[in-house]
């Protein structure tokens, strides 16, 4: 799959679509359950549907709706959702170059910055493939997520308990598959990421949702430039 070919376009597209489709499938089912959960909790159909189109961030949507349904008040709902989404700022910096150069491209692409698309794009070996991966996985994910939410909201809670399908293990597994090559290849990144993740796990019981992952960035303090190899900068 990684072989360098003279005309790689069709193969590249096919393999990107094939790998993306599993992420789409898992997200689609989560979207169905988001729609179903919201409506089953008493919200009108337009709430999950509009939220998915304009907010477009799974974990933040679940927590905002969770706070609303638990009677937590609008300010708490917004604060929780935004806190969870702060990480997209860091992600958007990491993929800024990948999105493309036109103004419309960048403004549209920004809306598609999610954990999934960033992980998928950054896992690709070269810039051309990174851009394709971002847009293919991003546009597909947006379509599937919103269709899933609509279907779930309309159908109510027909799917039942999605934990039965083990789908909650799918996204962490997607991340493992995507970040493992970077971790394997780069000792510096490994030295930041592993203590960062350990810190996030350690503080999870004590701090609000969204904070643990941000605190993991403290791992970057261990990021040293490879000065040994004649550093001139």
């Amino acid at each position, binding site marked *: 799959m990684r072989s360098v070919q003279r005309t790689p376009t069709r193969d590249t597209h096919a393999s990107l679509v094939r790998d993306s489709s599993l992420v789409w499938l898992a997200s689609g089912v989560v979207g169905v359950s988001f729609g179903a959960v919201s409506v089953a909790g008493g*919200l009108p159909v337009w*709430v999950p549907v*509009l*939220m998915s189109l*304009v*907010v477009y*961030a799974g974990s933040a949507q679940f927590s*905002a709706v969770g706070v*609303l349904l638990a009677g937590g008040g*609008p300010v708490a709902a*917004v604060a929780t*959702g*935004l806190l969870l*989404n*702060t*990480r*997209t*700022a*860091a*992600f*958007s*910096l*990491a993929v*800024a170059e990948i*999105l493309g*150069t036109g103004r419309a491209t960048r*403004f549209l*692409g*920004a*809306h598609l*910055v999610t*954990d999934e698309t*960033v*992980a998928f794009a950054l896992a690709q070996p070269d810039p051309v493939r990174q851009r394709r991966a971002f847009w293919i996985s991003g546009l597909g994910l947006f379509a599937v997520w919103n269709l899933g939410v609509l279907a779930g909201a309309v159908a109510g809670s027909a799917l039942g308990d999605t934990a*039965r399908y*083990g*789908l*909650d*293990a799918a*996204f*962490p*597994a*997607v*991340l*493992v598959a*995507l*970040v*493992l090559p970077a*971790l394997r290849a780069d000792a*510096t*990144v490994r030295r930041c*990421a592993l203590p960062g*993740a350990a810190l*996030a*796990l350690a503080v999870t019981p004590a701090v609000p*949702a969204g904070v643990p*992952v941000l605190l993991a960035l403290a791992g*970057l303090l261990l990021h040293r*430039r490879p000065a040994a190899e004649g550093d001139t*900068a």
Partner: protein
Amino acid sequence: MNTTLAVILALAVGTYAFRLVGPVLHGRVTVPPRVQELAGAGAVVLLVALLATGALTESGGFAGWARPAGVLVGAALAWRRAPFAVVVLAAAATTALLRLAGVG
């Protein structure tokens, strides 16, 4: 204005603002190579932290054994360079089977 609509719009505007940070800064300010390097490494750090907390925790507590076991099976397959589809499907299937067998 309807409160729920206000919640949705506030979340949407705030989230989109976060997402615009990269594209807006890009090309406007010259980002030093060191910062670019850190942004790239930072993305991996965030993803690994998401993966660890996503695999092991649920609402601030332990997520039970079925999910981490499934992710571990996926990780082992990914380590052996199994195809992406195999990694993801094996993780979900392991977790589903463990739950079917009564493991939390």
